[in-house]
């Protein structure tokens, strides 16, 4: 019992961090109505800046030099955008630079970030539909996380902390007579959270600005009456939110590696939702409760009745998800209030009628490339095609159905691991493999099908909340489930096999109809691609044609009807719940196929292959290509890091370059949300531009074409 209580109190430290981050989330939400999924990354950037200042004396601005330093560009010397300012000379100081100036400088960067978020992202998106705003905050998350990778090398850092936030302080012994020890920093964090909460609470309650914010929250005119423009209020709140995040990040530095920051937003979201996105005291309380639940939950899971196949540590990430789902489930209403119009326009989703021709061209093109290129290029080509294959799952769920699921890539990962398990036969796959995969020893095709079924089931499970929760809240739920899936399931050794938590060898001899279709040749230890490429191209083409056909048929129309207006969809006799589950099912099945195909390509998979940032990056690029069309997925696949376009441009992928590409993708994502409303490169196809010289492009070898709708409909109608 005491053990359990100590575990509960042990969670207070993390809980306090959730509370602080949650407070910042609420501030941003009250100011602008945006739930910022990038809030954790905002905290992380400030923490890294602080850490870097203290160790090297350099101040890194929140961007990097985009212009590569090679070729003629180097001789031109145009790559000198300032990114780093050397502030503290170590000659002057013995040991570390002084704390207060460092802290202030880091917070100044936070202010800058707040201004950037307001002016560059959320102000331009203020009238965008919900998807646009969610994408904007995903862009912030992806951008900052990528910039952290580029500027700071993405390594973990730990800091010894400062003042009372030091890990090496004497722990509290025998707290309340419970025995055991609790790190003193836990309590310091709690103080910090309480002080921060109290400060914001008083600010909102007693200052003119705070009252105006609360008025604006209820009714934009209310703020105007008090003499504030709503956008001014939004801007100030963004800065405040960013500074609060920075503070939270910096005081938390002592406790963990900054790479975790971006994912901490999940706990913060739980806290903020606990406070119904308005109440600061409830948010602080919610954060602490979630932290304690996590600590206590892990302790409980250590009992013998806990099912083996759920990873114990995963409970920590599951608790915020649980709170989020509970809060949303009981707050969410079944149907939106009547007459409520969604502001802004959703991206067009034109049906295409040249599917066969498009597919033939695309496949032919891909085949030619796969035969022209030598092995390195084939790796690149297949990366692009794999990305496209996965993106089709997003086309269905986000593009057609309008349900923002951020969890699809985890489903891909889950299916990949399940496939390995299904076909595993307990023998060593390759001489140098570290683990032996035990499993059911299914034949390749059966394993393929069963893994898709498993992935689809998981997708349906994740889709369940979508029956009541929609819009940005669904994005919140699915993003939280990403972490829970990874920690609870994908890393579970008893479910996925010995290597699950580290690296899992894939089957060495996948064969369909007697043909080896893996991407890795175990005899030669080399990549042996052409059959794999061919197989991948065929699968992708089939999936792509199916997805584009969906849009042409009644299923796609129903999905789009739901995306546009759930009330009216129900009045048209559509069973909205079934249709949503169908969408999640189809999307998850496609994601599973993509995951399995990825596993066929590489000799071993690990949970990191399916990390949240890779998934968000893919979302970014398909959104950039055009989320509503098959064409968009093809373009998105070409753009993706490690894919065709970056490779053509000569950017080879290491961690840093991948970060750069993702950052560029994030910027493109935000721009795309602002400029084209998410139609992406597919805008080239839309009527707005289609009449000009771009009309020529319509004959492109791609899946999409919305001209000649009538004739094609007529002929096709007759032939069916």
């Amino acid at each position, binding site marked *: 019992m005491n053990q359990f209580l100590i575990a509960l109190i042990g969670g207070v430290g993390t809980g306090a961090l959730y509370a602080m981050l949650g407070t910042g989330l609420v501030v941003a939400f009250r100011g602008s109505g945006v739930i910022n999924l990038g809030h954790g990354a905002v905290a992380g950037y400030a923490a890294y800046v602080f850490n870097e200042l203290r160790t090297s004396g350099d101040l890194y601005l929140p961007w990097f030099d985009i212009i590569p330093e090679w070729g003629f560009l180097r001789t031109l010397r145009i790559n000198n955008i300032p990114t780093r300012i050397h502030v503290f000379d170590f000659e002057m100081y013995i040991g570390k630079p002084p704390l207060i100036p460092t802290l202030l400088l880091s917070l100044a960067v936070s202010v800058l970030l707040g201004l950037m978020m307001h002016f560059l992202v959320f102000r331009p998106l203020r009238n965008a539909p919900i998807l646009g705003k969610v994408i904007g905050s995903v862009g912030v998350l992806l951008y900052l996380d990528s910039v952290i990778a580029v500027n700071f090398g993405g390594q973990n850092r730990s800091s010894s902390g400062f003042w009372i936030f030091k890990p090496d302080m004497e722990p509290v012994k025998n707290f309340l007579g419970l025995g055991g020890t609790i790190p003193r920093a836990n309590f310091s964090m709690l103080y910090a959270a309480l002080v921060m909460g109290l400060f914001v609470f008083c600010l909102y309650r007693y200052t003119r600005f705070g009252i105006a914010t609360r008025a604006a929250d209820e009714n934009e005119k209310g703020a105007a009456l008090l003499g504030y423009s709503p956008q001014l209020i939004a801007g100030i709140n963004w800065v405040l939110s960013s500074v609060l995040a920075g503070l939270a990040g910096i005081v938390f530095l002592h406790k963990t590696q900054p790479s975790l920051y971006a994912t901490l937003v999940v706990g913060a979201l739980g806290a903020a939702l606990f406070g119904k996105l308005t109440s600061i005291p409830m948010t602080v309380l919610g954060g602490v409760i979630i932290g304690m639940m996590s600590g206590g939950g892990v302790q409980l899971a250590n009992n013998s009745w806990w099912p083996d196949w759920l990873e114990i540590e995963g409970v920590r990430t599951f608790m915020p998800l649980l709170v989020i789902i509970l809060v949303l489930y009981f707050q969410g209403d079944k149907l939106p209030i009547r007459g409520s119009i969604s502001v802004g326009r959703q991206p067009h989703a034109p049906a295409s009628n040249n599917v066969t021709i498009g597919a033939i061209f695309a496949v032919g093109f891909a085949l030619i490339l796969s035969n022209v290129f030598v092995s390195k290029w084939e790796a690149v080509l297949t990366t692009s095609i794999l990305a496209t294959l996965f993106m089709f799952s997003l086309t269905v769920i986000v593009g057609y159905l309008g349900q923002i699921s951020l969890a699809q890539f985890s489903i891909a990962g889950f299916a990949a691991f399940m496939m390995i398990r299904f076909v595993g036969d307990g023998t060593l796959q390759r001489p140098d493999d570290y683990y032996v995969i035990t499993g059911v020893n299914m034949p390749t095709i059966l394993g393929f099908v069963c893994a898709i079924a498993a992935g689809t089931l998981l997708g349906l499970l994740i889709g369940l909340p979508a029956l009541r929760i929609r819009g940005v809240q669904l994005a919140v739920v699915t993003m939280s489930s990403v972490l829970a899936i990874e920690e609870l399931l994908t890393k579970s050794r008893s479910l996925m096999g010995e290597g699950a938590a580290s690296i899992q060898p894939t089957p060495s001899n996948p064969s369909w109809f007697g043909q080896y279709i893996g991407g890795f040749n175990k005899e030669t230890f080399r990549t042996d691609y052409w059959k794999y490429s061919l197989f991948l191209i065929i699968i992708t083409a089939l999936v792509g044609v199916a997805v584009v*056909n969906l849009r042409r*048929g*009644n299923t796609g129309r129903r999905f*789009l009807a739901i995306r546009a*207006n759930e009330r*009216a969809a129900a009045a048209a*006799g559509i069973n909205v719940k079934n249709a949503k589950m169908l969408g999640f099912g189809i999307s998850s099945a496609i994601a599973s196929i993509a995951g399995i195909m990825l596993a066929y390509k590489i000799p071993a998979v690990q949970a990191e292959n399916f990390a949240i940032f890779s998934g968000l990056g893919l979302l970014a690029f398909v959104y950039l290509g055009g989320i509503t069309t098959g064409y968009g997925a093809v373009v998105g696949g070409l753009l993706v890091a490690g894919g065709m376009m970056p490779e053509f441009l000569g950017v080879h992928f290491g961690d840093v370059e991948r970060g750069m590409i993702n950052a560029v993708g994030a910027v493109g994502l935000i721009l795309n949300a602002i400029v084209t409303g998410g139609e992406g490169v597919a805008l080239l196809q839309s009527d707005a531009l289609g009449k000009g010289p771009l009309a020529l492009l319509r004959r492109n070898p791609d899946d999409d074409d919305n001209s000649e709708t*009538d004739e094609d409909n007529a002929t096709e109608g007759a032939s069916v």
Partner: protein
Amino acid sequence: MSNILETSGLTVTFGGLNACDKVDLAVPEGKFVGLIGPNGAGKTTFIDAITGYVPTSAGNAVFSGEDIGELKPHERAQRGLVRTFQSLELFEDLSVKDNLLVAGYDTRWYSFLLDMIYMPRKDKDVEEQIEWALEIMGLNDVADAMPSDLSHGRRKLVGVARALAASPKLILLDEPAAGLDTAESQILGGHLREFLDHDMSVFLIDHDMGLVLSVCDYIYVLDFGKIIAEGTPQEIRESDTVKKAYLGEEAGEIQAQAGERMTYNIQGDQGGQDD
């Protein structure tokens, strides 16, 4: 004659206020029934209640012999109880024709598989119904346009056509004529009674007294959630209660007279309720 829809004691409460108060109302099969009443009388709320969009606190609704109180909105629509919305609520991302197709076709569990290989189900009856709906609402020339490219009035007509496309047994029209220009009103008004020839009954809410008095077989008058009068158009026109509550002012008189004149322009029986 049997009633396609019958409510008894239907009550909807919004925080203490009875938006519909013990409403007893019947729509006989194959007839054209109107519901009128001043703004905020609870007309839309009545439609919301019988289509399942707001919960009822008392009373029940029977639709073709079945108590529909427990059914979900889409289940009621599938049974042929189809409504339009006072606010537009079109599917903005679908073309006019696609709006109708969505409502026209139902799905089976395997439909999506057929769709994936592009073998959509074609049903002659549904296609004909959609053609007819487009035709009758004068939307043939804009079948492939997006709703956002149309005038407000024509968008309203798309809403009506979408409901018609579903081949309803009873169509509930919530102020279809509001916001229409003269030409559009004539299209609508001139065709409303044709609906009856397509195996449906019609329930119409509108503020245009001329229209309501001229097309309806039977009219109910709602005020503050209560039915205060009912009868044939003739009876309603002459009812003192109605005059007081609703038509009392001069404007009402003029509109009522306009309705009389319009009667001559519209064929179809005006005989009122038979039973």
